[in-house]
């Protein structure tokens, strides 16, 4: 356990720049997406195994907490995909994998993920406000 503690403290203290942040974010977003996916496979499987539970599961997902978590999830999937493409590109064309190019593209990847996330966040946020906070109603 103390090796793990040392590692995690090291992640925070390591003076890596964008590349280090990209590594950490890729890891965190990947794990978060996997956790969601596991639950999602099992909850969708209820349509066959326990059909009466499916409606209950969907009802939980419409709560405010899950609505907010869904917004975070969409960012996780977007960032993980964009950064993954960046990694795959550098792996396939290693001559472009210099420090300067990596830092530039790590920054651009994060910005791209945020830009792609904003319309989704607005749609989901609006849906939350309408259904969960009952705004915009007559």
């Amino acid at each position: 356990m103390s090796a793990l503690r040392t590692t995690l403290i090291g992640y925070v203290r390591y003076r890596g720049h964008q590349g280090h942040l990209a590594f950490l974010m890729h890891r965190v977003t990947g794990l978060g997406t996997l956790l969601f996916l596991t639950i999602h496979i099992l909850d969708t499987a209820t349509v066959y195994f326990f059909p009466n539970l499916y409606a209950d599961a969907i009802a939980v997902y419409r709560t405010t907490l899950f609505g907010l978590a869904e917004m975070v999830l969409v960012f996780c999937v977007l960032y993980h995909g964009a950064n993954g493409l960046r990694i795959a590109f550098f792996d396939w064309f290693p001559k472009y994998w210099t420090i300067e190019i990596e830092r530039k593209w790590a920054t651009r990847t994060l910005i791209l993920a945020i830009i792609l996330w904003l319309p989704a966040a607005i749609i989901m946020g609006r849906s939350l406000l309408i259904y969960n906070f009952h705004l915009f109603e007559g």
Partner: protein
Amino acid sequence: MTTESAQIETGVRKARITQSYDTIAWKWMRYSAVLLIPLVWIHVILQDVIIGVHQIDLSYVAYRWANLGWRVYDIFLVSFTFAHGMNGFRQVLNDYIHTVKARQAVALFLLIAWFVITLIGAAAIIGGVR
């Protein structure tokens, strides 16, 4: 056991790589990632944007799965994403587990978990809505 090799151009010299599970998994993560991006985003945009989360219920799932094409799509979706994710999980855990035996045990556990959960998902897609 034959050792195959792949040549990688580094710009300075060529290196011969002996194939192993990890080299295959490494390549597979990149290829599946590229495939996953359209697979996942079509799914998300269809379900969350076009249909909308509040329209999702059992009859919608049955309606969609009445079409064989969507069931095939969903099987591809579940297999590739979950395998990609579990292998990634294995790689992350390998960074924090320091003995070979423990890594092998975790890898076996992940393989079993992957298999069981994928089986449950596939059974539901093939079985359909009850």
